[in-house]
């Protein structure tokens, strides 16, 4: 006798409703795209799908309706908790804004193909699944679901060489990093005998206390997973692809990618390390990987911020700045390995990711707005005098720049406040000091953008006003300011996000 197939209720399917809707919607649209000639409608339907999914995700996060039960789903593969919900929201908002800022850009650069929006939705689904993975195999699959559409999107501007180079580089290095991840997963499986994070964490602690061989397997596995995910989030020294890929990809893709890849990557990072592998070595008082991550964070902060100073092209500047911001989230991740701080560190990372999503997509959207049709016009000289010609655009860019610097009343400050607070909680004061010093350094290159727009005179030639892109900018700028003025919104959202099973 076969056991009865599980029912929807057994699988707790409804808990995964946002991501299910998004993936189904994208799949149907993939077929329907063939029959829709005006690509405006593809964009509009994609936005509608993302919107529906976002509404459900918000209901789940806000506990307004009972949609599925919190807890595991799909027999332990999927985890639906507050952490999942927040990741969903951030990924979906990124996707929605990504669609808004893409439409006119694609139209004027003759790239308006329907699959663009569909790929964008699939990668958002990938990021959402990464945040809800409760199993290492899920992490791998959802990582691929996140990455492969992004490889294609960055090359969508073929036959332009920069775009092709960008896609090729991203694909090769991405595939390379995936193999690290798989190998790491295999080793962890070999040591712990399970892929389920909840089981690994139980076994891992006993292994690390007893058997040497298995302990090393586990540690090497954890290390390789760190390398694999480190590639995705652009942590130094695994960041080499970032500047070229960010610069070569079409700007709206970069905007979207810079946010969603980080959201997915860090969500998985937090799940694996904080939930699955908080292994404490004999006599140690924090997880074994805390020191490694501290070093990664320090390198990332230093390299990202120092190299960004020298950049002349805005896209490249923002690429290095996004490396630097990975460093700040790595601070939170490192703090997550200290017993008792795991949850507040995960919350800090979520707050930072939410703040960063609005700000960074907004900054790239401004670059998309000023970029010319032949993908030039994104240098420091091209924004001179922008404040006179397009005061609101320049104003929005200033908001984003101050937010990235971490000036209060913007979301960026709230993110930094949470991250440094977690670091102080965990007793990582030296890293926190490095964090604030590098953000003082970063003030220079962000302020440089502002002074080029406001203090220098020049005849910035910019494309005409673009309606949908503007609405995307309004949302990002308003989001940046609202999260900065009313930080309790984020605080309420992440308050119940909890990752650490063992305390």
């Amino acid at each position, binding site marked *: 006798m076969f056991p009865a197939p599980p029912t929807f209720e057994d699988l707790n399917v409804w808990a995964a409703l946002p991501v299910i809707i998004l993936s189904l919607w994208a799949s149907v649209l993939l077929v329907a795209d063939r029959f829709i000639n005006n690509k405006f409608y593809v964009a509009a339907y994609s936005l509608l799908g993302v919107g529906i999914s976002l509404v459900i995700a918000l209901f789940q996060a806000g506990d307004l309706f009972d949609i599925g039960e919190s807890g595991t789903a799909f027999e332990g593969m999927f985890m639906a908790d507050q952490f999942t919900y927040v990741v969903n929201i951030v990924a979906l908002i990124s996707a929605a804004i990504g669609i808004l800022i893409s439409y006119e850009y694609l139209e004027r650069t003759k790239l308006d193909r329907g699959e663009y929006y569909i790929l964008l939705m699939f990668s958002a689904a990938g990021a959402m699944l990464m945040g809800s993975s409760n199993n290492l195999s899920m992490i791998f699959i959802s990582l691929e679901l996140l990455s492969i559409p992004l490889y294609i999107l960055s090359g969508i501007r073929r036959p332009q060489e920069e775009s092709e180079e960008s896609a090729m580089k991203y694909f090769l290095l991405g595939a390379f990093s995936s193999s690290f991840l798989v190998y790491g997963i295999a080793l962890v499986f070999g040591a712990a005998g399970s892929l389920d994070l909840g089981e690994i964490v139980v076994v891992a602690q006993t292994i690390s206390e007893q058997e040497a061989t298995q302990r090393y397997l586990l540690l090497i596995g954890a290390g390789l997973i760190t390398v694999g995910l480190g590639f995705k989030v652009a942590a130094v020294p695994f960041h080499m692809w970032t500047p070229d890929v960010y610069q070569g990809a079409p700007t709206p893709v970069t905007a979207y990618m810079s946010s969603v890849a980080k959201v997915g990557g860090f969500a998985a990072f937090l799940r694996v390390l904080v939930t699955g592998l908080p292994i404490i070595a004999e006599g140690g008082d924090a997880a074994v990987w805390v020191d490694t991550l501290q070093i990664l964070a320090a390198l990332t902060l230093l390299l990202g911020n120092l190299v960004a100073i020298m950049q002349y092209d805005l896209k490249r500047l923002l690429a290095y700045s996004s490396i630097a911001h990975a460093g700040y989230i790595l601070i939170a991740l490192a703090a997550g390995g200290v017993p008792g701080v795991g949850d507040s560190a995960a919350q800090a990372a979520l707050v930072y990711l939410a703040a960063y999503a609005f700000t960074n997509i907004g900054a790239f959207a401004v670059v998309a707005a000023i970029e010319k049709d032949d993908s030039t016009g994104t240098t420091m000289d091209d924004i001179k005098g922008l404040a006179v010609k397009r005061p609101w655009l320049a104003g929005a860019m200033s908001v984003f720049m101050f937010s990235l610097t971490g000036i209060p009343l913007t979301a960026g400050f709230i993110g930094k*406040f949470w991250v440094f607070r977690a670091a102080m909680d965990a007793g990582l004061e030296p890293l926190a000091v490095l964090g*604030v*010093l590098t953000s003082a350094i970063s003030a220079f290159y962000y302020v440089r953008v502002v*002074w080029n727009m406001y203090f220098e005179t020049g005849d910035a030639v910019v494309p005409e006003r673009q309606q949908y892109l503007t609405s995307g900018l309004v949302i990002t700028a308003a989001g940046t300011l609202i999260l900065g003025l009313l930080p309790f919104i984020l605080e309420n959202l992440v308050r119940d996000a909890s990752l650490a099973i063992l305390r």
Partner: protein
Amino acid sequence: MQLENTGVSIVSAVLFSPLVGVLVLLFWPRLTDKQVRIATLINTLVTFAFSLLMLSQFDSSKGMQMEQVDEWIAGLGIYYHVGVDGISIWLVMLTTFIMPIAVLASWTGIEEKVRLFHGFLLLLEVAMVGVFVSLDLFLFYIFWEVSLVPMYFMIGMWGSKDKVDFFGREMEARIYAAVKFFLYTVAGSILMLLAILYVGNKAETFDFMLIRDLMRSGQLVFTEETERLLFVGFFIAFAIKVPVWPLHSWLPDAHVQAPTAGSIILAGVLLKLGTYGLVRYNLEFFPNAAIDFAPYIGALAVIGIIYGAWVSYAQTDVKKLVAYSSVSHLGFVVLGIFAMNSAGIQGAVLQMVNHGVSTGGLFLLVGMLYERRHTKAINAFGGLWKIMPIYSGFALVIALSSMGLPGLNGFVGEFTILVGSAGSDTLDIWYTVLATIGIILAAVYILFMFNKVFMGPVTKQENQELEDLTWGGNWYELSALVALTVVIFVIGLYPKPFFELMDGAVGDLVAQLDATLQVAMK
């Protein structure tokens, strides 16, 4: 620990009334430049009226009062908590008093992007008042950092037209000054953020009053080393803002390049954010470290007094002279604070107000000259008294007040500070002696400048036509100067009410410091 929410306080009205103006300027569809100026002036005057109302309700027998508490980020123990005591109320009054003068000072000087300029002006007022009234460390830090942004834009966009040589490349001096100002202050204040986080995490609240109670009752104690580190974390941020020698190098650039209103606000109020922070946070939270560091900081203050005066004397540019004189004057304030006794701190608080009025006045005068003559070089003038007698009369009063002539406000403040430092348990008598030399030097550079610019025969042909002040022609300049002069005489001749209102707050602080000192000396 929890705080109860309270009703709306008058302090919030003072704090947010300029925000109304900001929103009007941002979103009102069409406004002529003149309407913008008038609207801003009315807005700042209304704010001043609110602050007068607040002053009239002030009860000198109580400490912190007119508090307002509202939940903000409940999970982290962060509140919107504002209130005033005898120390902060004078600085709020100074701010709301200086702002209309800054608006009048830019009446004709600012001709481009008038609306944006006045928006920044009002935003700056919110930030500055916010620093003085916030009673929550998180809130305080927000206002503290936000005050940078409008000033950065004001210097960078409306600053002077000078050029500087920047590593072999010619660069606009205003951009250099704006960026230097921004980076210097960000770098300083960001370490304070860590110190705030540390204190907040330890106390499990960011509320100033709660933390103060925890510390006074001995429930929140830091080790000696931690306390020193935290003290330094706060001190560097404040010292850059004051600025304490040798962290002053941003000041001459920023003051000289800023438009007149910017210089007035920088000298008048923005520098006081630093000295206020020293009194409010360094002395209150870390008295042991303050006692340990007092001799060194006192030494820096005295060096600043003499250095600032000395360098002022050497200037050929009037505005630079006034800028460096601020370094000297603020040295007195810091000296008074770290004398750590009642006279020292009361003198310091009063001197903050005095310096705001008199140096703000000097920058206003320089701005008027510059608008008429388009130069600030001392040797371009001479004999102005013959051409502009009314202007020169005001200049004499304000210059003498800055110099510390008895009967005017500067004397009261400096004298009280010196009384305090002479009787201080933390500072040696030599500090007082050397600081007194600073007063003499101040007389030298001020009188030297006054002599060159106003006295003697008219040497330059261009100066013959300069326009004096009249109610009909330039009421805005005249009224600003009249207001400043009235305050100068009031404080100079009858300082008693000013000290009386401070008594409660300063007495409370000094009682705590004394107790710590007694323990330290045993």
